[in-house]
C-alpha cells in the first residue's frame, strides 16, 4: 500500500475518518460514507429505547468499514471507561475514541480526565485515540501512556470554523510519535486540506458532511481535499516570503535603460 496511514500497526488507505451523527437519514449517512472512501467511522454508544426500537445505524454501514466507538456522553474518566468496557464486552472493536467532555457549551475535553482514562484503558488492552485540545505537552503524556494516536480539535465541535489553533497543531505534528488526527471544527474541504498540508496524518469530519445540502457530494469533496492535502505535504510546500519573486522574466522586450 502506497503511503498508508498506520495506527497501532493497522494500515488504512484513507486519511479521512467520518462520523455518523447528524445526518437527515441513515440512507444519507450510508451514501456519504461510501462517497468519502473512509474505512473507519465513529459511532457512539446509547441506550436502546425499549418503546421504539428502530433500525440500527450499523445496518446501514457499507461492507469493509470498521467501527470506531466513542465515549460520547462521558463527563468523567469513570464514565468513559465504563462505556469503553461495555462496547468491547458487547463485541465492538477494542479501538476507542476517548472523549471526556464536561462542558456542554464549547464541548471542550477535560485533559486531566482524558489522561486518566487513557492510562486505564491502555492498561486494559484498548487501542486508545483520545480527543484533546491541541496541547503539545498533553500529547507527550498521552503518547507516554501508550495511546495509538492523538486527536486534537481544530475548533469547537460542529462550529465549522476551521483550524483556529493551527500553531499548536503544528507543534504537535513536529514532535509526534503517533499519528495526529485533527478532529472537530472543520467546516470546509479546504480546512481538511490545510490540516494534511501542515502534516496532520488524518482528519475526522462529521458535521460539515452530514449537514451539507448534499452530504454524499460533500463527502466526496472532503475525500479529494484530504488526498490533495496529503499529496501536497509529500510534494514539499514552498516557504512563504514577504516579497514577490517573479515567475516570468521582468525585462520583457522593452528596454529599460
Amino acid at each position, binding site marked *: 500500500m502506497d503511503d498508508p496511514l498506520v495506527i497501532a500497526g493497522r494500515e488504512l488507505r484513507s486519511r479521512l475518518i467520518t462520523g455518523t451523527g447528524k445526518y437527515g437519514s441513515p440512507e444519507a449517512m450510508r451514501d456519504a460514507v461510501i462517497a468519502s472512501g473512509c474505512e473507519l467511522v465513529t459511532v457512539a454508544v446509547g441506550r436502546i429505547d425499549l418503546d421504539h426500537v428502530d433500525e440500527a445505524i450499523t445496518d446501514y454501514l457499507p461492507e469493509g468499514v470498521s467501527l470506531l*466507538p466513542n465515549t460520547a456522553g462521558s463527563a468523567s474518566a469513570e464514565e468513559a471507561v465504563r462505556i469503553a468496557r461495555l462496547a468491547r464486552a458487547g463485541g465492538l472493536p477494542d479501538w476507542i475514541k476517548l472523549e471526556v467532555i464536561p462542558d456542554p457549551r464549547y464541548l471542550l475535553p477535560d485533559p486531566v480526565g482524558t489522561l486518566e482514562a487513557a492510562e486505564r484503558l491502555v492498561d486494559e488492552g484498548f487501542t486508545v485515540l483520545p480527543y484533546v485540545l491541541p496541547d503539545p505537552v498533553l500529547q507527550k503524556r498521552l503518547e507516554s501512556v501508550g495511546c495509538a494516536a492523538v486527536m486534537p480539535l481544530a475548533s469547537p465541535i460542529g462550529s465549522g470554523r476551521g483550524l483556529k489553533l493551527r500553531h499548536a497543531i503544528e507543534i504537535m505534528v513536529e514532535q509526534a510519535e503517533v499519528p495526529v488526527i485533527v478532529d472537530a471544527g472543520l467546516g470546509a474541504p479546504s480546512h481538511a486540506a490545510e490540516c494534511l498540508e501542515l502534516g496532520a496524518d488524518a482528519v475526522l469530519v462529521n458535521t460539515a458532511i452530514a449537514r451539507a445540502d448534499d452530504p454524499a457530494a460533500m463527502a466526496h469533496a472532503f475525500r479529494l481535499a484530504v488526498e490533495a492535502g496529503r499529496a501536497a505535504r509529500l510534494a514539499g510546500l514552498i516557504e512563504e516570503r514577504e516579497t514577490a519573486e517573479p515567475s516570468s522574466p521582468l525585462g520583457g522586450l522593452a528596454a529599460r535603460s
Partner: protein
Amino acid sequence: MSGEGVAVTVTVNGREQATGPGETVESLLEHLGLGAQFALVERNGEPVERARYGETRLEDGDRLVVARPVAGG
C-alpha cells in the same frame, strides 16, 4: 430463594421488567424484541461479555442497561 417458579423482577434501562425463572441475558433480549439487535449489556454496573449472554442468569433486582451503537461523531 431464587428457585423454580419464583418470579424475577429486573430493571432494564430504568424500567421494571418481570421475567420468568431461569431467564438469561440472551432470553431477556429475545423477550424484549431485541434478538436481532447488536445489543450491549451491562448488569449491575459490569459489562457482560457477548459470549456469556446465554449463560448469564438474571437474579431478582438486577439492574440492566441495554445499549447499542448509535449515530455519533
